[in-house]
């Protein structure tokens, strides 16, 4: 990654433990799912939103396990975006 922010991309963020209603309210833009003993948060985030979420995870003392980006397929770039990587 580098250069211009390509715009919102789908991310999944895995956190240790089950997040309750209180902590989940800190991530209104993400959809939570439980996976075993973990919570997986999914949502479209641009780069600054992603760092905002990571800062929130840091601030709330949560245990971050994994961040994964799901790159959009090359053959179907979002309309109007000619600068996608």
């Amino acid at each position, binding site marked *: 990654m580098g250069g211009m922010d390509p715009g919102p991309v789908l991310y999944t963020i895995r956190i240790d433990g*089950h997040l*309750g209603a209180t902590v989940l309210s800190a991530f209104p833009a993400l959809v939570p799912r439980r996976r075993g003993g973990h919570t997986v948060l999914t949502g479209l985030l641009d780069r600054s939103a992603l760092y905002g979420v990571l800062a929130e995870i*840091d601030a*709330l*003392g949560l245990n971050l396990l994994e961040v994964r980006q799901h790159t959009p397929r090359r053959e179907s770039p979002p309309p109007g975006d000619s600068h996608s990587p």
Partner: protein
Amino acid sequence: MTVAPATLRLIDRGDLLAALDRAAARKVTIISAPAGSGKTSLIRAWADHPGGPHRLAVVPVQRDQHDAQLFWLALLDAVRQATGAAGDAEPAAATPEFNARAMADRVLSALADARGGLTLVIEDLHELASPEALAQLTRLLTNLPPGVHAIVSTRHDLRLRLHRLRLAGELSEIRASDLRFSARETRELLDATGIALSEAGAALLHQRTEGWAAGLRLAVISLAGHPDPERFVAEFSGSERTVAEYLLAEMLDRQRGDVQRLLLRTCLLDRVNGELADLLTGRPGSERILLDLEDANAFVVSLDPERTWFRYHHLFADLLRLELRRRMPKQVPELHRRAAGWFIEYGEMVDAIRHTQAAGDWPGAAQLLADQSFSLTLDGQTQTLQALVRAFPPGADHPELALVRAMGDLGQGHLDEAAAHLAVAETYAETALPDRRRRLRVAIAALKLSLARRRGHLAGVIEQVKFLDSPLTGQSDEDIALGSDLRAVALLNLGTAEAWSALPDAERHLREGAVLAREIGRPYLEVSCLAQLGLASKVRPFATTQRRNREAIALADRHGWGAEPVIAPALNSLAGALMFTGDFDEADRWLQRAERAVQTDTGPDITLLMHMAGGMLHACRGRHQQAVEEFSAAEQLRSQLEGPPATAIQVTGWLLAAQARLGRPGEARALLAALDDERAGAGEIRNALAVICLAEDDPAGALGAVQDVLDGTVPVIGYVTVVEAQLLAGLAHRALGDQRAAGQAAERALALAEPDRLVLPFAMTGSRELLEALPRHETAHAALRTEILDIIHGSPAASDRSPPPPAEELSPGELKVLRYLPTNLSRFEIASELSLSRNTVSTHIKSIYAKLGVSDRSSAVRRARGLGLLSAGRTR
């Protein structure tokens, strides 16, 4: 109450304290671990334990600290408090380097004065969002004086480049794994708080929290007095919810109703005291609860030794805020509103406005902001003001904000936008209730004055300050205060406008403004007045102008405004005054600092002055192309001003001269032809014409051009123009082959330049050969002639006219130190610049004095300059 009993203190984590003891024996200790790891608790416990540091300076970095200035001021304050030097008037001289560097130097000096050692603690460094501050902090940490240690806590690793310390074995680190409670410590914690839990239960708790300090502390608060601790631990370890959330909910549920209520209702505040908490909870007794919570080590810390203000641990506050919004979302605006009311009552207006905004009361916030904007501007809080304006939702515009926007525009030099916003604000003010109307009118009057001044519109300013002649009247305290504010603003603008037009009362008005500003406790306004004094000084003596500007800059530095537009006029004026005496390198550095200070201010007035100074510097260094560009830019800005500065004619003259020297006399002639008669008749333009003639190989024409200047029959700005005319005459005589007349003209120029040691016209006119041709025994100003030649040369090319070298050559180390003597850096600052100890620098200086046969710094500089030791070619 059910918060843990006051006996619950941190257990004595002897191993950890010993680890920090060992770590702190090195120069720098970094504690890097996530939220809730117990960084702050460790530092506090270590500070209190027997054998801990006897003197501590603690600086918590505020949340989202973007303002590096505030960080450095807090650091300096903490060090001075700890060393008992708080009351000292700081005589540290301003330096031309960027302010953060100067501030770091100042902290280093303060640390060096801490006899008997000191431990500097910087908490939450991750909140510092300024790369420049981090860079300077790195320098500070790698140059700590003997006996000084530093402990830095942060949530995550930072870009501090401390490899030098690491290699020297002077860096130690404590990380999350070191901070974890061991199983044994968990057991001790439970025992110390009187919680009866089985071995298995304790082990389970330790395992589930992974020894995480925040988790354990939350658990202990819940467990204290729990009817069935075993069941609590079993349920907790059976839950898969995250540790902090589970335990916070449990802990809250187990608190008495009033404690719960207090925690939830006050968590929105960055800081809270008993009275404010009473107001938000609607019940008395909050102070006792806050004290008990702190005693119980329950995530509440007092901010002052008297224990009146408290804050919550960040992690704890963040969780509580989420919980508050979930449990009672409808209460949130009301809580903000109440907090705002309290802050208004106590005059904490920025907090008040923030909470009113957070309450969603946008009209109320706009009104408050408009009412306070004048006062906040006078205190230099323009950036805060603009941040508050930006916090309003886009779209819904409030007419009140036009006034605030006008202030922002003015501060950034957007004069047309300021005028437009001001017109809206005026219309709005007339619709306000009488009480507010008066206040708004005062702010508008002050703004109009500043706008007229920044346009160089002297008549407009004078028209609007007529009220200064009438004595202050007013019924209420507020009227009087407003009256004094307006008076001081009027004096500032009047004096500045007069200085701009070179009128004699400028200095008196600016001084009166500064005195009044000081009396009414407006240091920012005082600095504003003093920053213009340089411009108001008569051209000579330059030393006086330099001193005044340095004083103004030092005062601005002390308040943390050293890199802001307010001080730019002084930085610019100092650079100019240094150019007149030939200190081009130092002038260049000050000019660069001025450049940085005006980054956010693009007003035509200060920009014109910046281009003028830039052009002067280039012209003196023979870079005619760049000089033409700078002077042209300055010329073009005249059209944006109602009245150009009195020195504008000088810019025009120097522009023409630079064009001619660049080999474009034709262009210069075209410009010259476009000037009206009055301007064309000025001495500065006659001089320019002479330069054009010289470029056209018409020395006789040049002599004719400067004749009226030499006879004193045309107006000139100052004697500098006459010196310049003498030199141009000398060059013309030389071109005509009349060496004798050339020498006489050069001698007359030297005689005029001598009292002030004026160098600039010699450099600008390229009079090197003219001076060199003047035999040493034929001038009464041999020393000045040598000094000027040295400056023009950069390094002495012709060794025959150098005085004999000193008996003993200076060593490379001494030469390095020598290079810093013409600056006003202290010995300590020089040491820090060169990464040497202060003793080494002192030894070098002593030896330099001995070798040069002088006894003080200024004569050393003079002697070294005479010997050509200060020029770049010899010392690199």
